[in-house]
């Protein structure tokens, strides 16, 4: 990983120096090993702080949305899964492709610090990972954890090491984690009774504090003005006034990104209440695959998504609601 970071820095430096780009969108070192944050590097000198480690899970593609009207050119560091979001943004004209230089970088899975902490580990000073294991140095000593246990949710269901769009690749040889069945949890919920499902979601969504982190992180939530902030939409609301509004916010949010969501998992990653929001999106992904044939948002640019498309013999909503989840 460290070797890769070096390569990225060198390349970034070259790009800035030559004037090929006006800025690099990457991750900046935080206070600790495990809290790098997305940042724009416009000066070579700042590149010292650019990092690429086991905690660079954030999807940077959305940061280009804000640059759509800029006449400057930016390079962006994208892991394989992030490139799907980029492709989708290009399809929806939410970024200006000609002003973007995409550096596809290799990935062998990123870690969830909360999961590490949950194992009772604190005072982390350094983390190094192999394909299977992670060595964690702390001020109290070292420990070794199975990597699978502490991966980010989205890495557990990794979609592979292919960059669907890029201008150049660095470190693409890295081995991405072997994925679990990403629909397992959705299927498990489907198999519950309606009552159980209701209880489950009530329990999860009642924790929502409406901080909008999910919305802000989501690379599909790129509306200039969100419908919930649009005074003419009839559903504008700054905060949840009732349990109903919690449900409504999340149903509408999931619906608005349905068929556009690349299943990048950012929503759940950033949720301060650890609500598994990605399950709502993933339910739509699963339904869309089952109803209209397999579809992956962002794997090809400029394709019509299933919600702006139709077939003559599509499944009837009545069939869907009559059948419903199991039981």
């Amino acid at each position, binding site marked *: 990983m460290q070797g890769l970071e070096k390569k990225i820095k060198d390349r970034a430096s070259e790009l800035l120096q030559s004037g090929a780009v006006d800025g690099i969108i990457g991750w900046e070192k935080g206070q600790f090993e495990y809290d790098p944050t997305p940042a724009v590097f416009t000066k070579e000198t700042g590149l010292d702080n650019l990092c690429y480690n086991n905690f660079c899970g954030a999807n940077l593609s959305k940061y280009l949305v804000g640059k759509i009207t800029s006449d400057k050119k930016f390079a962006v560091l994208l892991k394989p899964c992030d490139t799907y979001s980029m492709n989708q943004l290009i399809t929806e004209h939410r970024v200006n492709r000609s002003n973007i230089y995409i550096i596809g970088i290799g990935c062998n899975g990123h870690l969830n610090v909360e999961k590490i902490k949950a194992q009772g580990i604190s005072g982390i000073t350094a983390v190094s990972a192999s394909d299977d294991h992670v060595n964690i140095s702390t001020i109290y000593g070292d420990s070794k954890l199975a990597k699978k246990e502490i991966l980010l949710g989205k890495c557990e269901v990794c979609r592979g090491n292919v960059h669907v769009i890029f201008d150049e690749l660095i470190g693409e040889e890295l081995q991405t984690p072997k994925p679990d069945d990403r629909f397992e949890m959705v299927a498990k*919920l489907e198999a519950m009774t309606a009552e159980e499902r209701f209880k489950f979601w009530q329990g999860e969504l009642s924790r929502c504090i409406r901080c909008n982190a999910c919305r802000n992180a989501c690379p599909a939530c790129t509306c200039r003005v969100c419908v919930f902030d649009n005074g003419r939409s009839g559903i504008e609301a700054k905060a949840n006034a009732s349990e109903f509004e919690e449900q409504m916010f999340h149903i509408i949010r999931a619906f608005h990104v349905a068929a556009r969501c690349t299943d990048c998992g950012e929503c759940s990653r950033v949720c301060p209440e650890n609500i598994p929001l990605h399950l709502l999106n993933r339910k739509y992904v699963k339904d869309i695959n089952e109803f209209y044939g397999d579809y992956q948002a962002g794997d090809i640019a400029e394709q019509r998504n299933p919600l702006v498309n139709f077939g003559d013999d599509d499944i*009837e909503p009545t069939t869907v609601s009559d059948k*419903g989840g199991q039981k």
Partner: protein
Amino acid sequence: MQEVKEFKPNIVAFCCNWCSYAGADLAGSSRLSYPAEVKIIRVPCSGRVNPMFILKAFEKGADGVIICGCHPGDCHYNTGNFYARRRMALLYSMLDFMGIEKGRTRVEWVSAAEGAKFANVMNKFTSDIIELGECVKLGDIRCKD
């Protein structure tokens, strides 16, 4: 003697102007009765029905929401009901996934000539909703008096 208050559901029917609203008119002019709990909102096309409308209706106290449009292939605007079909299939599936009773939402295709079908659909839907009872899962805390 204890008075048993009969449950009167609140049902919103979104009907497209060209087929289903006309079908409802035909049910009217043919004097085919259906429950008065069903109240129709005219929209140009089933493709105009935003999932937000449906959720809003539940929030405001609806116990059932039904969308009626032209038969697939016969949409006045060619394709509106095809989109509606996909949107509603996904929305209904999500409501079910969140544990909301699946009978509270429905889509039916009713042509301008199907007055009898309109009445039948509304009779059936209303009796289904009565069986489900008041909608409490959606709009838990809505004002009740």
